[in-house]
């Protein structure tokens, strides 16, 4: 394999635009040619999760038209990867050709850290980052994609990093996509606990691989006036 496709996701494009370049940099340093998937914008998860299946189908069609099923598709997000890799199987594509294409694309879709550790078999990327870092595992990455070790293995290989533990780190931050604005009171209560635990951890930076979590946790830290930043995993792994 010498070429991969990179889909940076809509939230990253809009709110964390450095994620695309950082992800591409990491992949290029491993000798891979990176093709950016720019003719698609969103995997359709936001529509799918809300029950708007025809809109989700339209976006899935668009996404699939943009990719080449013969080449790995790297997505720097646990939840978007889950959407494509797992939940595209639940979308009622109306023709056999699309169903077959979805079946071909799904196993080619990898979350960034999983691709690095499981496919490329690397853990040390020559990254350097100074500071106390807390890793926040995103729910979909852990529980739909079953990747608990990969991000930690990669972070442990970063020079200068000091990893700190957040109590109950596997508990959801309360983002949940539209859940965050439909049920702000519940989302906020969950976030508030998360912020307290992050503050107790002594972290200077919270790292996650999902922009949804970064928006939620970053927004909570900013509202609380905490001097703690949020960064995407790719940014840390690309830092030198």
């Amino acid at each position, binding site marked *: 394999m010498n070429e991969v496709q990179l889909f940076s996701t*809509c939230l990253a*494009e*809009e*709110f*964390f635009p*450095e994620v695309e*370049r*950082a992800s591409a*940099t990491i992949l290029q340093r491993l000798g891979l040619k990176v093709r950016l998937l*720019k003719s*698609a*914008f969103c995997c*359709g998860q936001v529509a*799918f*999760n*809300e*029950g*708007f*299946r025809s809109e989700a189908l339209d*976006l899935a069609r668009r996404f699939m038209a943009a990719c080449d099923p013969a080449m790995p598709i790297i997505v720097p997000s646990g939840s978007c990867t889950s959407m494509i890799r797992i*939940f595209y199987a639940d979308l009622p594509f109306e023709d056999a050709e699309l169903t077959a294409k979805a079946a071909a694309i799904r196993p080619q879709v990898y979350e960034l850290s999983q691709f690095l550790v499981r496919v490329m078999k690397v853990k040390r990327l020559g990254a*350097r*980052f100074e*500071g106390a870092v807390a890793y926040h595992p995103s*729910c979909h990455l852990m*529980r*739909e994609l079953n990747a608990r070790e990969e991000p930690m293995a990669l972070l442990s290989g970063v020079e200068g990093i000091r990893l700190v533990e957040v109590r109950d780190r*596997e*508990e*959801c931050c*309360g*983002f*949940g*996509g539209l*859940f*965050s*604005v*439909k*049920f*702000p*009171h*519940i*989302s*906020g*209560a*969950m*976030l*508030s*606990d998360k912020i307290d635990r992050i503050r107790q951890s002594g972290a200077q*930076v919270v790292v996650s691989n999902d922009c949804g979590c970064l928006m939620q946790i*970053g*927004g*909570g830290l*900013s509202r609380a006036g905490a*001097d*703690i*930043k949020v960064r995407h995993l790719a940014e840390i792994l*690309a*830092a*030198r």
Partner: protein
Amino acid sequence: MAVSPKATDFFAASEAGAADHELQRKLESASARHLEHFAEVRDEFTPYENERATARAIKENALGRLDELIVELTEKLTDHDCKVFFAASADEAREYIVKLATQCGARHVVKGKSMTTEEIALNPALERAGIEVLETDLGEYIVQLRGEPPSHIITPAIHLSKEDIGELFHEKFRVSYTPEPEKLTAEARTRLRESFLRADFGITGVNFAIAETGTLVVVENEGNGRMSSTIPEVFVALMGIEKVIPKLSDLPHFLEILARTATGQKLTTYTNFLRGPRADGDLDGPREMHVVIIDNGRSAMLSDPVLRESLMCIRCGACLNVCPVYRHIGGHAYRSPYPGPIGSIVSPSLIGSSTAYLPFASTLCGACKDVCPVHIDIPRILLHLRWKETSSPAPPPWPHDAHRARAGARMFARLARYPRIIRFLGHIAAVLVKPFAENGWIGSMPPPFANWTKVRDFPAPRPGHPRPANSAGKSIRNGRS
């Protein structure tokens, strides 16, 4: 307390729960205790993972031939002189039991813990008929004294501390206040004993119904299920159609996983095998035994290929204990006898449209799926129900702000088909909100993002303006947060 009058109550009730830090503290410590006990017994005896797989396979098989198993069970129970009644709906089940109690001249009903009786709202109906109903499970007894429904399917009084219970007993029984669990339990026990001895009608639920032998299995820890099913002259067991398992040899697998996941025990203290009324020569047991088998939406669930899996649930409550939403709002907020993740997937079918919001009230974090002893894929079922609700002819009426958020998401999804247009709009949005951003975050946003900034700041959009490469380290001090 099975059905709430207004569907939108969920929003008000969950808001109250989310603001109740005392409640959250109690739920957190109770859940942590549960999980700790579970971890201790998880791998004792047979390997737990094998048991999960076996139990699921048995349930899968049973659901595939539920009709024939129910016939087999009914025949066996009838052979043992039980009277079996099929109830298509909650109303039918409730009316049958109330009528039976009235005809028997029942005055004092004692109940073992049963969520299915909550589902059919049995207690208020019996009370309206002038019959006294006493919950005999300690937790149920406590919430009944408070005039509340249970807030957890295994631990009904999980929302109360020992101090709360001490005060309750002090107030209701005029005994001196004590928060000591042993003393409180002794007090309840003395009172419950008297009630058992004068009870003339007993009701319990059923954990497993073995088709092969016509045996109903009721597990419990206090002996109250045994007394409720053996002391009164007339005994009624109420069960959903999904409780049936094929063979006696299937049972141990379920006893193992249920005790472990529900209460962190190796085995429950009492495992009751109920086969029929008192036979000639028996020293005790009821004179009459009735078994009410209820559908109430279950066969419709069975015919839905995604929802079907939810009928494998053994009601262990583990998903409630790990659910961050449940732990932040408490069981009462769900306005259903079945709260938490499992409640969110079964309530719309078993309780009705007042619970249509529950599948949406989840972050889809999947902690429930991880812990479920029979591997029910709860997030996938939640997604399925969201789609069904959204495409139904009468979708639930959303509060204004939530409706607007959903409409906004739908609009976004439609526009996102055209990447150039959506990117252009993204750039415009970034320019418009830039003046309001401070250190990269915005404190107050207009609808449909107003609800976002109610509880946290919003990230200033900056498409096409990435932080400089290799600045991640430096920007901890200088960049936007």
